[in-house]
């Protein structure tokens, strides 16, 4: 009687053990498959988001090449750009309803930074030293960095710096130094145009009170180049003007995914009707009904 009961218990134990083993195996299989499926889905999602961002970059380029930068040309029905600023404040650009943009959502955040409003590493001066100090470099070393950079750019038969990371080829400069300032310096830039200087650079270029006033105006949307002139007594001249140049640092961010693209672009605007970057049979977007010759040429 005892043995029979023991046998019964053994059988139950064996069945339970086998069921447990099978269950564990099944759980492992399900966990593995879930992990791999989620990995594949993540990759697919990332790919779709990136491809959508590349597509949106081309769309924004086309918008910037064919829209008036200074005015909200209401007759241009294809325009989706809001009023632009060139000192790096974000503006929201609505995207057209296309399946290819689904992964990005309905909008993109666009920042334009005029490159002529940044400090050029090819003509280093006291502003760069002041900037380095503000970013935590000791004053003596900041001066040394600027001196070395000046010596490098002014040596005979030297090449202009064309990439910001090439500054590490200058004695004394390290990658960390470049990282400290790279958001507000450029290798491009012609005549400095500090009307559109980013907020981070204003305290280096202007008196602190003026810099704070300009930042406050920008935040409230009440800033333009006339306000800059009023505050700084700088009204420009025949050589330098306050219009944003063709070279812009364009930063696009997808709000949902946080994907970001940053490029230094040359949009070659040609008067109020920008020169397209493709040199085909037509040079300009000639639309005589909307843009008279006067409009085309009045800015050159």
């Amino acid at each position, binding site marked *: 009687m005892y043995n029979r009961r023991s046998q019964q218990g053994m059988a139950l134990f064996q069945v339970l053990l086998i069921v447990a083993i099978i269950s564990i195996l099944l759980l492992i299989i399900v966990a593995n498959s879930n992990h791999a499926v989620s990995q594949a889905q993540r990759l697919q999602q990332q790919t779709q988001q990136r491809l959508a961002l590349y597509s949106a970059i081309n769309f924004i380029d086309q918008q910037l090449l064919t829209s008036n930068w200074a005015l909200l040309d209401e007759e241009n029905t294809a325009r989706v750009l809001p009023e632009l600023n060139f000192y790096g404040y974000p503006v929201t650009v609505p995207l057209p309803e296309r399946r290819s943009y689904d992964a990005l959502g309905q909008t993109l955040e666009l920042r334009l930074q005029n490159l002529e409003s940044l400090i050029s590493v090819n003509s280093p001066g006291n502003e760069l030293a002041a900037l380095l100090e503000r970013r935590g470099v000791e004053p003596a070393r900041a001066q040394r960095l600027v001196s070395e950079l000046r010596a490098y750019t002014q040596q005979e038969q030297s*090449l202009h710096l064309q990439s910001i990371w090439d500054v590490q*080829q200058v004695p004394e400069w390290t990658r960390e130094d470049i990282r400290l300032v790279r958001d507000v310096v450029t290798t491009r830039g012609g005549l400095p145009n500090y009307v559109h200087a980013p907020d981070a650079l204003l305290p280096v270029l202007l008196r602190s009170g003026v810099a704070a006033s300009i930042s406050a105006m920008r935040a409230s949307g009440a800033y333009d180049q006339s306000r800059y002139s009023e505050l700084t007594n700088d009204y420009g001249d025949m050589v330098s003007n306050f219009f944003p140049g063709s070279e812009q640092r364009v930063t696009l961010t997808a709000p949902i995914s946080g994907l970001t693209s940053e490029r230094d672009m040359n949009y070659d605007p040609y008067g109020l009707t920008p020169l397209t970057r493709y*040199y085909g049979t037509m040079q300009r977007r000639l639309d005589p009904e909307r843009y008279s010759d006067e409009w085309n040429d009045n800015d050159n």
Partner: protein
Amino acid sequence: MGRHCRHALTQRTYTDRQHGFTLVETLISLVLISLVMLSAAMAYQYFTQNWQRNQSNFLDVRENYRTWQLVHQVTDAIYPKVVFDDNQVPGFYFLGRDDGFTGVASISAQDPSTSAVFRIFREPNQNNGFRLVYEEATLGQQALQRAGQTLPFNFRRILIENAASISFRYQGWQNIAVRSRAIAAEGFEERIATPEWFSDYDGMERSLHPLAIEINAAGVVWFITLPDSAVAELSRYTSDV
């Protein structure tokens, strides 16, 4: 008596029910369960192998995707790099042939904090086809100043393993003189000179940088647009442009 017998029968039946499995029953059930387990194990093994094969393919695809992303970022960052030739004449560090090209980008695939010289070219594979290869030499603290400078290329990546054909061509202006005439004609003539497609493009010979590169891998076209800033770059070194 009748009650006793009925009681005995009831007791026997109860006892029989208590017997549970006999040894033979247990052995048979164990054999059956073992067979089921064996089948399950074999099925699981097959499933696992199949899964690992698929996962391996997936990892290859993912790695390939990453490589393409990196290379895409590099080709997006190509710029017309000015260098001097042996006679101190400035030109552009770009050499395009029908089997590949060498250019300069402001980032490298290995390290986004340095510029790099890179090349994309075709080479024959064992299947009588071609593979598309990427290689680069990061610049870091080394300045690129001469067209003839020797650079250590590494970071070899296969972009396409097997294509029946791979060809390269370059869109650009014939040379700096044609480009300068086109600039002078802007605003005066409705039609000006247009860029052309070339099967080779030497940035030092032409003193120009191409505007676009087309890589055609058996009908799949990869089109890379480049910044049109060569003349502006060169104007920093010459006074007659």
